[in-house]
């Protein structure tokens, strides 16, 4: 009895989840339990850390400027571009497509980084 109820509960949950997803435009995950991952990149001392980042498709990367000088995060291929980030300001971008995304700071172009999305 209990098992049937619990299986039923799970089925109902999945159905609810799928219906919920269906109503949500732009949803890309197949399971209602999948969370959007967030990965942090710290900007400090004129460096992006980590400089090279590998993430799965759907990850949101958040850059936080911990330096005492402003920086920007600009995709070399014009995929994303932050406004100028003063100390403690952040910029986020969600990588929906697989690929390699080199970027740099447009104020200090020697500062470069890369996000590899798989």
């Amino acid at each position, binding site marked *: 009895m209990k098992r049937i109820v619990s299986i039923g509960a799970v089925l109902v949950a999945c159905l609810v989840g799928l219906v919920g997803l269906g109503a949500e435009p732009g949803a890309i995950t197949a399971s209602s339990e999948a969370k959007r991952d967030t990965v942090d990149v710290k900007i400090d*001392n*004129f*460096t992006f850390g980590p400089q090279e980042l590998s993430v799965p498709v759907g990850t949101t990367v958040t850059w936080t400027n911990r*330096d*005492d*000088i*402003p920086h*920007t995060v600009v995709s*070399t291929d014009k995929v994303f571009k932050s*406004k*100028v980030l*003063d*100390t403690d300001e952040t910029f986020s971008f969600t990588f929906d497509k697989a690929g390699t995304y*080199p*970027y*740099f700071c*447009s*104020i*200090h*172009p*020697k500062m*470069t980084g890369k996000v590899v999305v798989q």
Partner: protein
Amino acid sequence: MREKEKDGLLNDHDHDGIDRRGFLRCMAWAGTGVLCVLQGGVLKSYALSTMSGSESGSGSALPAAGELSFVQISDSHMGFNKAANPDVAATLKAAIDKVNGLAVPPEFMLHTGDISHLSKPEEFDTVDQILKGSSAKDVFFVPGEHDVLNDEGKQYLERYGKGAKGAGWYSFDKRGVHFVGLVNVLNLKAGGLGTLGQEQLDWLKADVKHLKHSTPIVVFAHIPLWSIYPAWGWGTEDSSQALAYLKRFGSVTVLNGHIHQTMQKIEGRVTFHTAASTAFPQPQPGQADSPGPMKVPAEKLRSLLGITDVRYVRGQHTLAIVDSSLA
């Protein structure tokens, strides 16, 4: 042991007019106290203590009252408020006080960029307000990378680029000296240095084409037009092309900012000079992990900020460049 020769020349042991020890001091450029003047192609150094209060001084070899006198200031970074200098408005005001205290009032000032820290309107407004208090009649600007944030330099152009071409380059003449303001802080490429771009280079070529080679040229731009330390972005990738267009001139002076410390190099007939910031110092090349603001004890700060006084004496094809710190 220094011997004071006639003409006020120091260390002219070979009597050939070349002051070798003075030359080395000019190269080291310890800061104040030494006036280096290139006269007739010969570099001479004068201890400032031998100069009397008035500019005409002893009259003979010392530079007469400059027919053209101007000041270079740089990197005011209005809006910066971190530990390296919590009050950049106060130090900019101190720099203007210094300008106003010069024996020969400057006719105008050159600001070699990073006027603001975050390209905010109120930051530009504050600098304009403070500069109004100077004895100089006009200020000519070129943008730094901090002045062109978020809008590709549109606001900078509206404020300071009247009559300028492209991203804000222009030229003007004063007393027979030709001044050229260049912009090398836009369209920077990943991993790259400062850049002038072909359109600006073509403009420069045409701009100086018909000038007599005896016309003294002063070029000013934010990022150094010589390779000081590429790892920190202290250089301009296509500056050699610009300098090639100026090669035939008898006197070329290049005034830059960006590195927040004074540095000088003479290469043939070209004198390169970078000014100190009025906001905060930066480390010497390679002396720190990165070129960011350098924190120093509060009482030391003003000794690492400063202004540059430049004087041109007609007929000499020379410009005397004197850096002085705020303390």
